[in-house]
Protein backbone atom coordinates (compact mmCIF):
# COMPACT_ATOMS: atom_id res chain seq x y z
CA UNK A 1 0.00 0.00 0.00
CA UNK A 2 3.07 2.17 -0.05
CA UNK A 3 2.72 3.04 -3.65
CA UNK A 4 -0.71 4.47 -4.17
CA UNK A 5 -2.04 7.32 -6.11
CA UNK A 6 -5.52 7.08 -4.70
CA UNK A 7 -6.56 10.36 -3.29
CA UNK A 8 -3.98 12.29 -5.28
CA UNK A 9 -6.32 14.40 -7.37
CA UNK A 10 -5.09 16.96 -9.80
CA UNK A 11 -6.75 20.29 -9.38
CA UNK A 12 -5.19 21.86 -12.46
CA UNK A 13 -3.85 20.80 -15.80
CA UNK A 14 -0.49 22.14 -14.78
CA UNK A 15 -0.37 19.65 -11.94
CA UNK A 16 -1.43 16.90 -14.29
CA UNK A 17 1.35 17.82 -16.70
CA UNK A 18 4.17 17.44 -14.23
CA UNK A 19 6.91 15.01 -15.18
CA UNK A 20 6.19 12.93 -12.11
CA UNK A 21 2.56 13.47 -11.23
CA UNK A 22 2.63 10.95 -8.39
CA UNK A 23 4.04 12.04 -5.06
CA UNK A 24 5.93 8.84 -4.37
CA UNK A 25 7.72 9.17 -7.68
CA UNK A 26 8.80 12.68 -6.85
CA UNK A 27 10.14 11.52 -3.52
CA UNK A 28 11.96 8.62 -5.14
CA UNK A 29 13.57 10.75 -7.81
CA UNK A 30 14.61 13.28 -5.20
CA UNK A 31 16.24 10.55 -3.16
CA UNK A 32 17.96 9.19 -6.22
CA UNK A 33 19.38 12.59 -7.09
CA UNK A 34 20.52 13.08 -3.52
CA UNK A 35 22.35 9.78 -3.63
CA UNK A 36 23.88 10.62 -6.98
CA UNK A 37 24.99 14.11 -6.03
CA UNK A 38 25.90 13.67 -2.39
CA UNK A 39 26.26 10.13 -1.19
CA UNK A 40 28.16 8.64 -4.11
CA UNK A 41 30.81 11.37 -4.30
CA UNK A 42 31.45 10.86 -0.62
CA UNK A 43 31.68 7.11 -0.60
CA UNK A 44 32.26 5.86 -4.15
CA UNK A 45 35.53 4.20 -5.02
CA UNK A 46 37.65 5.41 -7.86
CA UNK A 47 36.92 2.22 -9.72
CA UNK A 48 33.21 2.78 -9.39
CA UNK A 49 33.50 6.23 -10.90
CA UNK A 50 35.92 5.55 -13.67
CA UNK A 51 34.89 2.12 -14.82
CA UNK A 52 31.17 2.21 -14.17
CA UNK A 53 29.47 5.47 -13.32
CA UNK A 54 31.18 7.78 -15.77
CA UNK A 55 30.75 5.49 -18.78
CA UNK A 56 27.23 4.75 -17.62
CA UNK A 57 26.26 8.40 -17.48
CA UNK A 58 27.84 9.25 -20.80
CA UNK A 59 26.40 6.32 -22.68
CA UNK A 60 23.02 6.88 -21.07
CA UNK A 61 23.17 10.39 -22.48
CA UNK A 62 24.03 9.08 -25.92
CA UNK A 63 21.26 6.50 -25.65
CA UNK A 64 18.90 9.27 -24.65
CA UNK A 65 19.81 11.16 -27.78
CA UNK A 66 19.40 8.10 -29.91
CA UNK A 67 16.09 7.33 -28.27
CA UNK A 68 14.72 10.64 -29.46
CA UNK A 69 15.46 9.62 -33.00
CA UNK A 70 14.55 5.95 -32.83
CA UNK A 71 12.11 5.73 -29.99
CA UNK A 72 10.24 8.97 -30.44
CA UNK A 73 10.55 9.72 -34.12
CA UNK A 74 10.81 6.15 -35.40
CA UNK A 75 13.89 6.71 -37.57
CA UNK A 76 16.29 3.84 -37.04
CA UNK A 77 19.93 4.83 -36.98
CA UNK A 78 23.00 2.64 -36.98
CA UNK A 79 25.31 5.62 -37.21
CA UNK A 80 25.20 6.93 -33.66
CA UNK A 81 28.91 6.33 -33.20
CA UNK A 82 29.52 8.67 -36.11
CA UNK A 83 27.62 11.51 -34.48
CA UNK A 84 29.47 10.95 -31.23
CA UNK A 85 32.71 11.14 -33.17
CA UNK A 86 31.69 14.36 -34.88
CA UNK A 87 30.90 15.85 -31.49
CA UNK A 88 34.21 14.74 -30.04
CA UNK A 89 36.39 15.86 -32.91
CA UNK A 90 34.39 19.04 -33.36
CA UNK A 91 34.86 20.04 -29.75
CA UNK A 92 38.50 19.04 -29.91
CA UNK A 93 39.11 21.35 -32.82
CA UNK A 94 37.32 24.25 -31.19
CA UNK A 95 39.33 23.65 -28.05
CA UNK A 96 42.76 23.48 -29.63
CA UNK A 97 42.27 26.04 -32.34
CA UNK A 98 40.69 28.82 -30.36
CA UNK A 99 42.67 30.10 -27.43
CA UNK A 100 40.85 30.28 -24.18
CA UNK A 101 37.87 28.30 -25.40
CA UNK A 102 36.01 27.20 -22.30
CA UNK A 103 35.18 23.51 -21.98
CA UNK A 104 31.44 24.00 -21.85
CA UNK A 105 31.43 26.17 -24.94
CA UNK A 106 33.58 23.64 -26.78
CA UNK A 107 31.22 20.92 -25.69
CA UNK A 108 28.17 22.74 -26.98
CA UNK A 109 29.93 23.62 -30.21
CA UNK A 110 30.87 19.97 -30.57
CA UNK A 111 27.20 19.15 -30.13
CA UNK A 112 26.33 21.71 -32.79
CA UNK A 113 28.83 20.19 -35.22
CA UNK A 114 27.12 16.86 -34.68
CA UNK A 115 23.79 18.55 -35.30
CA UNK A 116 24.94 19.83 -38.66
CA UNK A 117 26.19 16.43 -39.75
CA UNK A 118 23.16 14.74 -38.24
CA UNK A 119 20.77 16.90 -40.21
CA UNK A 120 22.81 16.33 -43.34
CA UNK A 121 22.57 12.58 -42.99
CA UNK A 122 18.97 12.94 -41.90
CA UNK A 123 17.91 14.39 -45.21
CA UNK A 124 17.64 10.98 -46.89
CA UNK A 125 15.06 10.04 -44.25
CA UNK A 126 12.59 12.19 -46.12
CA UNK A 127 12.58 9.61 -48.85
CA UNK A 128 13.95 6.43 -47.34
CA UNK A 129 12.19 4.56 -44.61
CA UNK A 130 12.67 1.82 -42.06
CA UNK A 131 15.45 -0.66 -42.46
CA UNK A 132 16.61 0.98 -45.63
CA UNK A 133 17.24 4.13 -43.67
CA UNK A 134 19.02 2.15 -40.97
CA UNK A 135 21.51 0.91 -43.48
CA UNK A 136 21.80 4.32 -45.06
CA UNK A 137 22.88 5.72 -41.70
CA UNK A 138 25.77 3.28 -41.83
CA UNK A 139 27.07 5.52 -44.57
CA UNK A 140 27.50 8.22 -41.95
CA UNK A 141 29.29 5.75 -39.72
CA UNK A 142 31.82 4.62 -42.27
CA UNK A 143 32.29 8.05 -43.73
CA UNK A 144 33.18 9.67 -40.41
CA UNK A 145 35.36 6.70 -39.42
CA UNK A 146 37.27 7.37 -42.58
CA UNK A 147 37.28 11.15 -42.40
CA UNK A 148 38.73 11.37 -38.91
CA UNK A 149 41.42 8.87 -39.75
CA UNK A 150 42.34 10.30 -43.06
CA UNK A 151 41.87 14.04 -42.95
CA UNK A 152 44.67 15.12 -40.71
CA UNK A 153 43.25 18.60 -40.23
CA UNK A 154 40.62 17.12 -37.90
CA UNK A 155 43.29 15.65 -35.66
CA UNK A 156 45.34 18.80 -35.63
CA UNK A 157 47.89 17.02 -37.84
CA UNK A 158 48.75 14.50 -35.19
CA UNK A 159 51.09 12.07 -36.87
CA UNK A 160 49.44 8.97 -35.48
CA UNK A 161 45.90 10.23 -35.88
CA UNK A 162 45.28 9.88 -32.18
CA UNK A 163 44.38 13.00 -30.24
CA UNK A 164 44.17 13.87 -26.59
CA UNK A 165 43.09 16.67 -24.32
CA UNK A 166 44.43 17.69 -20.96
CA UNK A 167 43.98 20.26 -18.27
CA UNK A 168 40.21 20.44 -18.53
CA UNK A 169 38.45 22.86 -16.27
CA UNK A 170 35.09 24.49 -15.83
CA UNK A 171 35.19 28.06 -14.57
CA UNK A 172 38.63 27.42 -13.21
CA UNK A 173 37.68 24.23 -11.40
CA UNK A 174 39.83 21.41 -12.74
CA UNK A 175 38.05 18.33 -14.06
CA UNK A 176 40.75 15.84 -13.24
CA UNK A 177 39.78 13.69 -10.31
CA UNK A 178 37.30 10.89 -10.82
CA UNK A 179 34.77 12.58 -8.55
CA UNK A 180 34.93 15.88 -10.39
CA UNK A 181 34.61 14.08 -13.73
CA UNK A 182 31.67 12.16 -12.40
CA UNK A 183 29.92 15.24 -11.09
CA UNK A 184 30.51 17.10 -14.30
CA UNK A 185 28.97 14.28 -16.32
CA UNK A 186 26.12 13.98 -13.86
CA UNK A 187 25.21 17.64 -14.16
CA UNK A 188 25.36 17.55 -17.95
CA UNK A 189 23.28 14.40 -18.08
CA UNK A 190 20.66 15.74 -15.68
CA UNK A 191 20.31 18.97 -17.62
CA UNK A 192 19.97 17.19 -20.94
CA UNK A 193 17.63 14.55 -19.58
CA UNK A 194 15.34 17.26 -18.27
CA UNK A 195 15.42 19.15 -21.56
CA UNK A 196 14.81 15.98 -23.52
CA UNK A 197 11.87 15.13 -21.30
CA UNK A 198 10.48 18.62 -21.82
CA UNK A 199 10.78 18.33 -25.56
CA UNK A 200 9.11 14.98 -25.64
CA UNK A 201 6.15 16.15 -23.63
CA UNK A 202 5.55 19.27 -25.63
CA UNK A 203 4.29 19.89 -29.14
CA UNK A 204 7.46 18.83 -30.91
CA UNK A 205 7.51 15.53 -29.03
CA UNK A 206 4.00 14.81 -30.15
CA UNK A 207 4.95 15.65 -33.71
CA UNK A 208 7.85 13.19 -33.57
CA UNK A 209 5.65 10.46 -32.20
CA UNK A 210 2.97 11.20 -34.77
CA UNK A 211 5.51 10.81 -37.55
CA UNK A 212 6.72 7.60 -35.96
CA UNK A 213 3.27 6.08 -35.58
CA UNK A 214 1.78 7.06 -38.92
CA UNK A 215 3.51 9.55 -41.13
CA UNK A 216 0.73 10.07 -43.67
CA UNK A 217 -1.83 10.86 -40.99
CA UNK A 218 0.64 13.18 -39.33
CA UNK A 219 1.09 15.12 -42.53
CA UNK A 220 -2.65 15.32 -43.00
CA UNK A 221 -3.17 17.02 -39.66
CA UNK A 222 -0.58 19.59 -40.57
CA UNK A 223 2.72 18.23 -39.29
CA UNK A 224 5.50 18.95 -41.74
CA UNK A 225 7.36 15.64 -42.08
CA UNK A 226 10.54 17.41 -43.06
CA UNK A 227 10.52 19.68 -40.06
CA UNK A 228 9.63 16.93 -37.61
CA UNK A 229 12.20 14.46 -38.92
CA UNK A 230 15.00 16.95 -39.24
CA UNK A 231 14.42 18.40 -35.79
CA UNK A 232 14.51 14.88 -34.42
CA UNK A 233 17.80 14.32 -36.21
CA UNK A 234 19.09 17.66 -35.00
CA UNK A 235 18.14 17.28 -31.36
CA UNK A 236 19.20 13.66 -31.30
CA UNK A 237 22.59 14.28 -32.85
CA UNK A 238 23.16 17.30 -30.66
CA UNK A 239 22.73 15.21 -27.53
CA UNK A 240 24.68 12.33 -29.02
CA UNK A 241 27.41 14.76 -30.02
CA UNK A 242 27.65 16.13 -26.50
CA UNK A 243 27.85 12.57 -25.23
CA UNK A 244 30.66 12.04 -27.72
CA UNK A 245 32.51 15.03 -26.30
CA UNK A 246 32.16 13.66 -22.80
CA UNK A 247 33.23 10.19 -23.86
CA UNK A 248 36.35 11.50 -25.55
CA UNK A 249 37.29 14.31 -23.20
CA UNK A 250 36.21 12.99 -19.84
CA UNK A 251 36.23 9.24 -20.10
CA UNK A 252 39.03 8.40 -22.52
CA UNK A 253 41.19 11.52 -22.49
CA UNK A 254 42.97 10.28 -25.60
CA UNK A 255 41.17 8.68 -28.46
CA UNK A 256 41.16 7.57 -32.05
CA UNK A 257 38.23 7.05 -34.40
CA UNK A 258 37.95 3.41 -33.32
CA UNK A 259 36.48 4.66 -30.05
CA UNK A 260 33.37 5.55 -32.05
CA UNK A 261 33.22 2.53 -34.27
CA UNK A 262 30.17 0.73 -35.50
CA UNK A 263 30.28 -1.44 -32.39
CA UNK A 264 29.49 1.66 -30.38
CA UNK A 265 26.52 2.36 -32.63
CA UNK A 266 25.17 -1.14 -32.08
CA UNK A 267 25.83 -0.92 -28.37
CA UNK A 268 23.78 2.25 -28.13
CA UNK A 269 20.98 0.78 -30.15
CA UNK A 270 20.92 -2.16 -27.77
CA UNK A 271 20.64 0.20 -24.85
CA UNK A 272 17.70 1.93 -26.41
CA UNK A 273 15.87 -1.26 -27.31
CA UNK A 274 16.52 -3.05 -24.05
CA UNK A 275 15.84 0.04 -22.02
CA UNK A 276 12.67 0.81 -23.85
CA UNK A 277 11.92 2.71 -27.03
CA UNK A 278 10.35 6.08 -26.50
CA UNK A 279 11.22 6.39 -22.86
CA UNK A 280 13.69 8.76 -21.27
CA UNK A 281 14.09 6.52 -18.28
CA UNK A 282 14.60 3.60 -20.62
CA UNK A 283 17.86 5.09 -21.85
CA UNK A 284 19.21 4.95 -18.31
CA UNK A 285 17.97 1.44 -17.72
CA UNK A 286 19.44 0.29 -21.00
CA UNK A 287 22.81 1.88 -20.38
CA UNK A 288 23.01 0.42 -16.89
CA UNK A 289 22.13 -3.01 -18.16
CA UNK A 290 24.58 -3.00 -21.03
CA UNK A 291 27.49 -1.57 -19.10
CA UNK A 292 27.11 -3.49 -15.91
CA UNK A 293 26.18 -6.86 -17.32
CA UNK A 294 29.46 -7.71 -19.07
CA UNK A 295 31.48 -6.48 -16.09
CA UNK A 296 29.41 -8.67 -13.84
CA UNK A 297 29.59 -11.64 -16.12
CA UNK A 298 33.33 -11.18 -16.28
CA UNK A 299 33.64 -11.36 -12.54
CA UNK A 300 31.13 -14.01 -11.61
CA UNK A 301 33.36 -17.00 -12.48
CA UNK A 302 36.09 -15.45 -10.36
CA UNK A 303 33.76 -14.87 -7.46
CA UNK A 304 32.55 -18.42 -7.64
CA UNK A 305 36.13 -19.60 -7.87
CA UNK A 306 35.68 -21.29 -11.20
CA UNK A 307 38.90 -21.00 -13.14
CA UNK A 308 37.96 -20.05 -16.67
CA UNK A 309 40.33 -18.65 -19.22
CA UNK A 310 39.63 -15.06 -20.19
CA UNK A 311 38.86 -16.22 -23.69
CA UNK A 312 36.23 -18.67 -22.51
CA UNK A 313 34.79 -16.08 -20.19
CA UNK A 314 34.69 -13.56 -22.94
CA UNK A 315 32.96 -16.00 -25.28
CA UNK A 316 30.53 -16.92 -22.55
CA UNK A 317 29.85 -13.25 -21.95
CA UNK A 318 29.11 -12.89 -25.65
CA UNK A 319 26.75 -15.82 -25.54
CA UNK A 320 24.97 -14.79 -22.37
CA UNK A 321 24.74 -11.25 -23.59
CA UNK A 322 23.23 -12.33 -26.88
CA UNK A 323 20.87 -14.73 -25.17
CA UNK A 324 19.74 -12.10 -22.69
CA UNK A 325 19.00 -9.67 -25.47
CA UNK A 326 16.78 -12.22 -27.15
CA UNK A 327 15.27 -13.14 -23.82
CA UNK A 328 14.36 -9.56 -23.04
CA UNK A 329 12.90 -8.99 -26.45
CA UNK A 330 10.71 -12.03 -25.99
CA UNK A 331 9.61 -11.25 -22.47
CA UNK A 332 9.07 -7.56 -22.99
CA UNK A 333 9.67 -6.05 -26.41
CA UNK A 334 9.10 -2.62 -24.93
CA UNK A 335 12.10 -2.88 -22.73
CA UNK A 336 13.03 -2.46 -19.14
CA UNK A 337 11.14 0.80 -18.84
CA UNK A 338 7.96 -1.10 -19.60
CA UNK A 339 8.83 -3.81 -17.09
CA UNK A 340 9.42 -1.06 -14.61
CA UNK A 341 6.02 0.47 -15.19
CA UNK A 342 4.35 -2.93 -15.02
CA UNK A 343 6.17 -3.45 -11.75
CA UNK A 344 4.87 -0.12 -10.50
CA UNK A 345 1.40 -1.05 -11.66
CA UNK A 346 1.53 -4.21 -9.60
CA UNK A 347 2.92 -2.30 -6.69
CA UNK A 348 0.08 0.13 -6.93
CA UNK A 349 -2.38 -2.68 -6.37
CA UNK A 350 -0.27 -4.51 -3.87
CA UNK A 351 -1.11 -6.28 -1.63
CA UNK A 352 -4.43 -6.90 -3.34
CA UNK A 353 -4.19 -9.03 -6.48
CA UNK A 354 -6.76 -7.07 -8.49
Amino acid at each position, binding site marked *: MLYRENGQFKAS*YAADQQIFPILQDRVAIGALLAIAFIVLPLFGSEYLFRAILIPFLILALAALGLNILVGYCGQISLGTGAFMAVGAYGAYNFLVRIDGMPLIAAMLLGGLSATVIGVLFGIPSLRIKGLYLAVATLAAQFFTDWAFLRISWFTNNSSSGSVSVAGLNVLGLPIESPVSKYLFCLVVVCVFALMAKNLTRSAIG*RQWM*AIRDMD*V*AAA*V*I*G*IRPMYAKLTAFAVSSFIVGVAGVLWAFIHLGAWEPAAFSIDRSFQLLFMVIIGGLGSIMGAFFGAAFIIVLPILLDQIPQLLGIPLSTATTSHLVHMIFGALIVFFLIVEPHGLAKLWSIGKQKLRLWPFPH
Partner: protein
Amino acid sequence: MMMNDIANAAEASAAGGRRIGEVILDLQNISLRFGGVKALTDISFNVREHEIRSIIGPNGAGKSSMLNVINGVYHPQEGRILFHGQERKKMEPHMAATQGIARTFQNIALFKGMSVLDNIMTGRNLKMKSNLLQMALYWGAVQKEEIAHREKVEEIIDFLEIQSVRKTPVGQLPYGLQKRVELGRALAAEPTMLLLDEPMAGMNVEEKQDMCRFILDVNDQFGTTIVLIEHDMGVVMDISDRVVVLDYGKKIGDGAPDEVRNNEEVIRAYLGTSH
Protein backbone atom coordinates in the same frame (compact mmCIF):
# COMPACT_ATOMS: atom_id res chain seq x y z
CA MET B 1 -16.53 26.99 -24.42
CA MET B 2 -17.52 26.18 -27.96
CA MET B 3 -17.83 22.50 -27.38
CA ASN B 4 -19.82 22.93 -24.25
CA ASP B 5 -22.13 25.13 -26.19
CA ILE B 6 -22.83 22.47 -28.73
CA ALA B 7 -23.26 19.81 -26.18
CA ASN B 8 -25.83 21.92 -24.40
CA ALA B 9 -27.46 23.26 -27.45
CA ALA B 10 -27.46 19.92 -29.16
CA GLU B 11 -30.73 18.73 -27.72
CA ALA B 12 -32.58 21.77 -28.82
CA SER B 13 -30.89 22.37 -32.12
CA ALA B 14 -32.34 20.98 -35.28
CA ALA B 15 -31.27 21.83 -38.80
CA GLY B 16 -32.65 25.28 -38.24
CA GLY B 17 -29.51 27.29 -37.45
CA ARG B 18 -27.62 26.02 -40.42
CA ARG B 19 -27.40 27.89 -43.70
CA ILE B 20 -25.74 26.42 -46.74
CA GLY B 21 -23.53 28.94 -48.39
CA GLU B 22 -21.46 29.43 -51.52
CA VAL B 23 -19.25 26.88 -53.24
CA ILE B 24 -15.96 26.74 -51.35
CA LEU B 25 -14.33 23.78 -53.01
CA ASP B 26 -14.61 23.25 -56.71
CA LEU B 27 -13.05 20.23 -58.38
CA GLN B 28 -12.88 20.49 -62.13
CA ASN B 29 -12.10 17.60 -64.47
CA ILE B 30 -9.88 15.73 -62.10
CA SER B 31 -7.98 12.72 -63.47
CA LEU B 32 -5.58 10.63 -61.42
CA ARG B 33 -3.42 7.72 -62.54
CA PHE B 34 -1.06 5.36 -60.71
CA GLY B 35 1.41 4.10 -63.23
CA GLY B 36 -0.95 2.92 -65.95
CA VAL B 37 -3.96 2.42 -63.71
CA LYS B 38 -6.66 5.05 -63.85
CA ALA B 39 -8.06 5.80 -60.43
CA LEU B 40 -10.14 8.85 -61.31
CA THR B 41 -11.30 9.96 -64.71
CA ASP B 42 -12.49 13.46 -65.46
CA ILE B 43 -14.42 14.05 -62.27
CA SER B 44 -16.02 17.36 -61.46
CA PHE B 45 -18.07 18.30 -58.46
CA ASN B 46 -18.21 21.00 -55.85
CA VAL B 47 -18.76 21.43 -52.15
CA ARG B 48 -20.74 24.31 -50.64
CA GLU B 49 -20.01 25.98 -47.40
CA HIS B 50 -21.66 24.35 -44.35
CA GLU B 51 -23.13 21.45 -46.25
CA ILE B 52 -22.77 17.71 -45.69
CA ARG B 53 -21.59 16.29 -48.95
CA SER B 54 -21.38 12.51 -49.32
CA ILE B 55 -19.38 10.48 -51.79
CA ILE B 56 -20.67 6.98 -52.36
CA GLY B 57 -19.83 4.21 -54.73
CA PRO B 58 -18.64 0.61 -54.85
CA ASN B 59 -15.27 -0.43 -53.53
CA GLY B 60 -12.48 0.63 -55.81
CA ALA B 61 -14.63 3.41 -57.22
CA GLY B 62 -12.05 6.00 -56.25
CA LYS B 63 -13.74 7.54 -53.24
CA SER B 64 -10.72 7.49 -50.98
CA SER B 65 -8.56 8.68 -53.86
CA MET B 66 -10.90 11.62 -54.17
CA LEU B 67 -10.35 12.60 -50.55
CA ASN B 68 -6.61 12.09 -50.99
CA VAL B 69 -6.72 14.52 -53.89
CA ILE B 70 -8.61 17.08 -51.86
CA ASN B 71 -6.11 17.13 -49.05
CA GLY B 72 -2.98 16.81 -51.12
CA VAL B 73 -1.88 13.22 -50.45
CA TYR B 74 -2.27 12.50 -54.16
CA HIS B 75 -1.58 14.92 -56.98
CA PRO B 76 -3.94 14.56 -59.94
CA GLN B 77 -2.35 14.60 -63.37
CA GLU B 78 -5.15 16.66 -64.84
CA GLY B 79 -7.80 19.07 -63.63
CA ARG B 80 -8.09 22.14 -61.48
CA ILE B 81 -8.94 22.52 -57.84
CA LEU B 82 -10.39 25.80 -56.62
CA PHE B 83 -10.52 26.37 -52.91
CA HIS B 84 -12.25 29.53 -51.73
CA GLY B 85 -12.19 30.62 -55.33
CA GLN B 86 -8.44 30.37 -55.72
CA GLU B 87 -6.77 27.79 -57.89
CA ARG B 88 -4.64 25.54 -55.81
CA LYS B 89 -1.12 24.67 -56.86
CA LYS B 90 0.44 21.29 -56.23
CA MET B 91 0.76 20.98 -52.49
CA GLU B 92 1.64 18.66 -49.66
CA PRO B 93 -0.87 17.32 -47.13
CA HIS B 94 0.31 19.52 -44.29
CA MET B 95 -0.50 22.57 -46.37
CA ALA B 96 -4.10 21.45 -46.73
CA ALA B 97 -4.23 21.31 -42.97
CA THR B 98 -3.05 24.90 -42.69
CA GLN B 99 -5.90 25.86 -45.02
CA GLY B 100 -8.36 24.37 -42.57
CA ILE B 101 -8.98 20.94 -44.07
CA ALA B 102 -8.97 18.06 -41.57
CA ARG B 103 -9.69 14.42 -42.14
CA THR B 104 -10.20 10.93 -40.79
CA PHE B 105 -9.19 7.69 -42.42
CA GLN B 106 -10.90 4.54 -43.57
CA ASN B 107 -8.54 2.24 -41.65
CA ILE B 108 -8.05 4.45 -38.60
CA ALA B 109 -4.77 6.29 -38.78
CA LEU B 110 -4.30 7.13 -35.15
CA PHE B 111 -0.90 7.35 -33.51
CA LYS B 112 -0.98 4.01 -31.77
CA GLY B 113 1.79 4.58 -29.30
CA MET B 114 0.29 7.77 -27.91
CA SER B 115 -2.49 8.37 -25.43
CA VAL B 116 -5.92 9.65 -26.42
CA LEU B 117 -5.01 13.02 -25.01
CA ASP B 118 -1.77 13.27 -26.96
CA ASN B 119 -3.47 12.14 -30.14
CA ILE B 120 -6.00 14.90 -29.92
CA MET B 121 -3.32 17.39 -28.86
CA THR B 122 -1.45 16.70 -32.11
CA GLY B 123 -4.54 18.01 -33.86
CA ARG B 124 -3.75 21.40 -32.39
CA ASN B 125 -0.12 21.49 -33.43
CA LEU B 126 -0.72 24.10 -36.09
CA LYS B 127 -1.95 26.48 -33.46
CA MET B 128 1.06 26.08 -31.20
CA LYS B 129 3.75 28.65 -31.63
CA SER B 130 6.58 27.89 -29.20
CA ASN B 131 10.01 27.15 -30.62
CA LEU B 132 12.34 24.27 -29.86
CA LEU B 133 14.41 26.04 -27.25
CA GLN B 134 11.39 27.25 -25.34
CA MET B 135 10.00 23.75 -25.37
CA ALA B 136 13.26 22.32 -24.11
CA LEU B 137 13.07 24.66 -21.13
CA TYR B 138 9.30 24.21 -20.71
CA TRP B 139 9.00 27.46 -18.94
CA GLY B 140 6.41 30.21 -18.82
CA ALA B 141 4.87 30.72 -22.22
CA VAL B 142 5.20 27.11 -23.25
CA GLN B 143 3.48 25.84 -20.18
CA LYS B 144 0.70 28.39 -20.56
CA GLU B 145 0.27 27.43 -24.17
CA GLU B 146 0.14 23.73 -23.32
CA ILE B 147 -2.52 24.37 -20.72
CA ALA B 148 -4.58 26.59 -22.97
CA HIS B 149 -4.65 23.95 -25.65
CA ARG B 150 -5.21 21.24 -23.12
CA GLU B 151 -8.39 23.02 -22.10
CA LYS B 152 -9.67 23.02 -25.67
CA VAL B 153 -8.81 19.38 -26.03
CA GLU B 154 -10.61 18.54 -22.82
CA GLU B 155 -13.72 20.15 -24.27
CA ILE B 156 -13.51 17.87 -27.26
CA ILE B 157 -12.97 14.91 -24.97
CA ASP B 158 -16.07 15.83 -23.04
CA PHE B 159 -18.04 16.32 -26.21
CA LEU B 160 -17.09 12.93 -27.58
CA GLU B 161 -17.65 11.27 -24.20
CA ILE B 162 -14.21 9.71 -23.95
CA GLN B 163 -13.14 11.19 -20.63
CA SER B 164 -12.49 7.86 -18.99
CA VAL B 165 -9.88 6.81 -21.54
CA ARG B 166 -7.96 10.04 -21.95
CA LYS B 167 -4.66 8.63 -20.72
CA THR B 168 -5.05 5.24 -22.40
CA PRO B 169 -2.83 4.47 -25.37
CA VAL B 170 -5.18 4.47 -28.35
CA GLY B 171 -3.91 1.12 -29.53
CA GLN B 172 -5.67 -0.48 -26.58
CA LEU B 173 -9.08 1.05 -27.29
CA PRO B 174 -11.89 -0.79 -29.02
CA TYR B 175 -12.52 0.09 -32.62
CA GLY B 176 -15.54 2.30 -32.09
CA LEU B 177 -13.77 4.48 -29.59
CA GLN B 178 -10.75 4.75 -31.85
CA LYS B 179 -12.99 6.10 -34.58
CA ARG B 180 -14.24 8.66 -32.12
CA VAL B 181 -10.74 9.68 -31.08
CA GLU B 182 -9.84 10.11 -34.70
CA LEU B 183 -12.79 12.42 -35.15
CA GLY B 184 -11.65 14.29 -32.06
CA ARG B 185 -8.19 14.73 -33.49
CA ALA B 186 -9.63 16.19 -36.67
CA LEU B 187 -11.94 18.48 -34.70
CA ALA B 188 -9.09 19.75 -32.55
CA ALA B 189 -7.74 21.58 -35.56
CA GLU B 190 -11.01 23.55 -35.70
CA PRO B 191 -11.27 22.87 -39.41
CA THR B 192 -13.53 24.66 -41.82
CA MET B 193 -13.78 21.50 -43.85
CA LEU B 194 -13.82 17.97 -42.49
CA LEU B 195 -13.22 14.93 -44.67
CA LEU B 196 -14.58 11.72 -43.16
CA ASP B 197 -13.62 8.41 -44.76
CA GLU B 198 -16.12 5.71 -43.76
CA PRO B 199 -16.56 6.90 -40.19
CA MET B 200 -19.20 4.21 -39.51
CA ALA B 201 -17.43 1.22 -41.04
CA GLY B 202 -17.63 -1.76 -38.76
CA MET B 203 -19.99 -0.17 -36.26
CA ASN B 204 -23.25 -1.48 -34.94
CA VAL B 205 -26.37 0.57 -35.20
CA GLU B 206 -26.02 2.12 -31.79
CA GLU B 207 -22.48 3.23 -32.45
CA LYS B 208 -23.55 4.58 -35.81
CA GLN B 209 -26.24 6.61 -34.15
CA ASP B 210 -23.69 8.10 -31.78
CA MET B 211 -21.38 8.95 -34.62
CA CYS B 212 -24.19 10.57 -36.63
CA ARG B 213 -25.04 12.67 -33.64
CA PHE B 214 -21.45 13.91 -33.40
CA ILE B 215 -21.23 14.68 -37.09
CA LEU B 216 -24.53 16.53 -37.16
CA ASP B 217 -23.65 18.51 -34.06
CA VAL B 218 -20.32 19.60 -35.48
CA ASN B 219 -21.97 20.64 -38.68
CA ASP B 220 -24.79 22.45 -36.94
CA GLN B 221 -22.82 24.25 -34.40
CA PHE B 222 -19.64 25.26 -36.20
CA GLY B 223 -20.98 25.22 -39.67
CA THR B 224 -18.10 22.93 -40.51
CA THR B 225 -18.38 21.71 -44.06
CA ILE B 226 -18.34 17.92 -44.15
CA VAL B 227 -17.33 15.63 -46.97
CA LEU B 228 -18.30 12.09 -46.12
CA ILE B 229 -17.60 8.70 -47.60
CA GLU B 230 -19.92 6.03 -46.29
CA HIS B 231 -21.34 2.69 -47.30
CA ASP B 232 -24.33 2.68 -45.00
CA MET B 233 -27.01 4.05 -47.31
CA GLY B 234 -29.31 4.72 -44.41
CA VAL B 235 -26.79 7.09 -42.88
CA VAL B 236 -25.89 8.71 -46.18
CA MET B 237 -29.42 9.33 -47.28
CA ASP B 238 -30.49 10.61 -43.87
CA ILE B 239 -27.80 13.13 -43.14
CA SER B 240 -26.38 14.37 -46.44
CA ASP B 241 -27.40 17.49 -48.23
CA ARG B 242 -26.01 16.33 -51.54
CA VAL B 243 -24.53 13.05 -52.71
CA VAL B 244 -22.05 12.32 -55.47
CA VAL B 245 -21.79 8.76 -56.81
CA LEU B 246 -18.59 7.33 -58.26
CA ASP B 247 -18.10 4.08 -60.11
CA TYR B 248 -14.77 2.83 -61.42
CA GLY B 249 -13.27 6.29 -61.22
CA LYS B 250 -16.12 7.99 -63.03
CA LYS B 251 -18.92 10.13 -61.75
CA ILE B 252 -22.31 8.53 -62.39
CA GLY B 253 -24.60 10.64 -60.30
CA ASP B 254 -24.79 13.85 -58.30
CA GLY B 255 -27.61 15.53 -56.44
CA ALA B 256 -29.89 15.48 -53.41
CA PRO B 257 -30.34 12.10 -51.68
CA ASP B 258 -33.71 11.40 -53.19
CA GLU B 259 -32.51 12.22 -56.65
CA VAL B 260 -29.61 9.88 -56.34
CA ARG B 261 -31.67 7.14 -54.78
CA ASN B 262 -33.85 7.04 -57.85
CA ASN B 263 -31.09 7.40 -60.40
CA GLU B 264 -31.21 4.35 -62.69
CA GLU B 265 -27.49 4.18 -63.26
CA VAL B 266 -26.76 4.45 -59.58
CA ILE B 267 -29.15 1.65 -58.78
CA ARG B 268 -27.65 -0.58 -61.44
CA ALA B 269 -24.04 0.05 -60.53
CA TYR B 270 -24.24 0.31 -56.82
CA LEU B 271 -27.34 0.13 -54.78
CA GLY B 272 -28.56 -3.08 -56.32
CA THR B 273 -32.14 -4.12 -56.45
CA SER B 274 -32.52 -5.62 -53.04
CA HIS B 275 -32.49 -2.26 -51.25
